[in-house]
């Protein structure tokens, strides 16, 4: 997992719960917590941090991830404004997500695995988003999309049609940009 994810999580936690909360979370997760966006760290450390937050806040891991995704967008905008400015709405921004993520991952580790979001049209006119990753962080994606809608002042209805967490081979999410 890219270091920037840990940084974003730290920022989100600090912003909402204070500087010491992050240290507490690290302590609960048994991690030493020196993360830089230039580095890459074991996926298990994110899982442990999310589990710790889940315990501390009394939320499900999925809810923590969704909260994290939604909270991360303003932070991302602070760090990477250039990814946001070309887009006039959240739909356009979300559609470009692969273009943003792939170079960001590969610039550090040429062979690193990237999540791939496959966009397609659904018969009912909604946008389909298929996601397959061993990390199974579809809830994080859900939160990112909500955060993007917040950022552009748009509305979006998100429905999980199928989920890897329910044993499905792939997550399928329906996005309705005109709910």
């Amino acid at each position, binding site marked *: 997992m890219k270091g920037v994810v840990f940084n974003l999580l730290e920022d989100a936690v600090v912003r909402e719960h204070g500087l010491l909360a992050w240290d507490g979370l690290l302590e609960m997760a048994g991690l030493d917590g020196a993360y830089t966006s230039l580095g890459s760290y074991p996926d298990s450390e994110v899982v442990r941090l999310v589990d710790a937050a889940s315990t501390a806040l009394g939320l499900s891991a999925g809810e923590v991830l969704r909260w994290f995704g939604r909270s991360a967008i303003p932070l991302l905008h602070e760090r990477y404004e250039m990814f946001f400015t070309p887009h006039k709405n959240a739909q356009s921004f979300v559609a*470009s997500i692969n273009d943003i993520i792939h170079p*960001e991952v590969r610039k550090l580790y040429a062979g690193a695995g990237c999540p791939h979001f496959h966009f397609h049209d659904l018969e009912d006119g909604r946008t389909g988003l298929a996601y397959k990753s061993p990390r199974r962080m579809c809830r994080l994606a859900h939160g990112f999309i909500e955060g993007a809608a917040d950022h552009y002042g748009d509305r979006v209805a998100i429905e999980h049609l199928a989920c890897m967490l329910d044993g499905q081979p792939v997550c399928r999410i329906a996005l309705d940009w005109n709910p």
Partner: protein
Amino acid sequence: MKQEAIPLPHDAAMAVERLERLVQREREGRLQAEAIAERGLRELYESQVRLALLQRITDCANRSNDFSEAIGEVLKEICEHMNWAFGTAYRVEGYGAAVACDAWYTAEPARLFPLVEATRDRTFASGEGLPGRVLRDGHPHWIDESELATSFCRRVEAASCGIRSACGFPVLIGEEIVCVLEFFARTAMIDKDAILLTVTQAATQLARVIERERARAALLHDALHDAMTGLPNRTLLDERSRAAFERLPESREGLAVLVIDLDGFKAINDKYGHHAGDIVLIETARRFDSVITARMGGRRRGDQASWRATLARVGGDEFVVVLDALPDPAIAMDLSGALIDALKAPIQVADEYVNVGLSIGIAHSGTSYSSVEQLRQDADLAMYEAKSGGHGGVVTFSDSLGNERRNRMALESELRDAIREKQFTLYYQPIFALGKAGANTGKLRGFEALIRWNHPDRGLVEPGRFIPAAEAGGLIVFIGDWVLRQACSAMARLHRSLTERGFAPGELPYISINIAPQQFLQPTFSSHVQRVLLETGVPPELVRLEVTEGVAIIDPDQTRQVLEQVRSWGVKTSLDDFGTGYSSLSYLQNLPFDTLKIDRSFIASMDDPKSRKIIRAILDLASNLNLSVVAEGIETMEQGASLREMGCEYGQGYHLGRPLDEASAFALVWPEGTASAA
């Protein structure tokens, strides 16, 4: 630094606050450092990816000589790299429109079907649509989501495919736009600088492919076209006419070959130089091409037309038109007439206007032909028939022409046997000094050697019956050689016996030998004459070589050189049949002749005052140029007397002496006393 100068926290809360500020500063320092490093890494990564893409595109461009092959791969690479939905290309042809070349790429053909269909057969005029705007302005154009939704001409199709942005790029060779690339994305095109850098470099590689394609096409064109006129050459004509012959229906009808030869072209070349000749050929080709194009209704080969034509230049001044899929054979004759009309207006060469005529031979396909080459030969034959009329025109090959050809071919074959089996014999016609006015027949001065063919079945055959066939079949050189050698050795024999009988060298008769143009213009002719003179021992000054104006017309320079050479050994030269051909005074002035022979036709019509005037003019001319004159074909005493009156020195003809075999002819030389003593 003194310790008391630094303010320290007084209590723990303040210390925590300070430590928090410290952490915050560290944090921001780290973020800045990360941002700098990330930006650098991202730029490095992107340039590596772009270089890798360009490397693949360059490799593809290096591999490919064919634009249509390279473009598909290039579109695919760019679309995949940019994550674009659809890429396509337009060729820009001479008339300033972007024409879709059915080269496109999309990873989702089914999804993009409406836009692909609305694009793949389109032609955009300059200024029209995205490709037209690129073509008009010569620089890239970008179309964003709002423009795409409102004014884009394929907006309905684009919208139905979820397209949100588009861009178009020119492919340039120098200043010329040769191709337009067009891309569509389902997201916004954000980093325009990076896109520009990448696609422009890809376009440069594509331009290289097009340049190579053009160079190849030019080479191929040069190999199949005549450099001077730009018309198809013999190779391409052969290829097309064979293909057309293969395509003939069961009836074998519908193909015609026109063989066209310019009349008077040689004279233009000789008079005004080769540059003038070239101008004539180029202008002729241009007029022919426009006539044929107009007759086909403005349609060129390859378009749907009721019939097709290939105009080719196959030799110096020889053109061929192959007409294919003719619904009516009369079209060939009509077209021939139109071609002749097209050359009626004179052609301007420098400050002069020149005229050329045409001789056209036509042959139509039919069941009797098994190859297009036979058709060409028959068209050739018809052309020669048209040319032999002297005034050009059109002749369509017919069976009777074919029979003539078969007869001539049979004759040629018999002539080959005749050469092998030595069936020729020489007759000798005496040439006399006509003597002084008022006197009687003068002294015998020489003989003209005349060939006869002693045919095993038909007896003696006159030269008029076989010499044209021998000339056409290239056999005249062998026959002429035999005549030269035979006449010289016969004369040498005669001279020996006369010398033995006490004849003074000045009293010995000369021998006049006809030399055919083909024989005369052989590069080895003069050295061959020298060898014959040495081998037979005949005195060179008693040998006269007779040539017609034909040789001078074919190659005046070579003619002068050969004449000068043989005269340098003492051989005399004679211009035969004077008055019937071009009778150009320039030939007479420039070519070294000793004798003029007035053609028999003027002698035969001597009763006509006009003929007498011509004869008088020829005699005056010869006298001024210091040439002796022999009148041919004197058949009556009156003719002989008149010529003598006019001052003609020498003559030959039935009235004076018929051609005789060697023994009878040479017997004329013996003075009666000597003859009886022998």
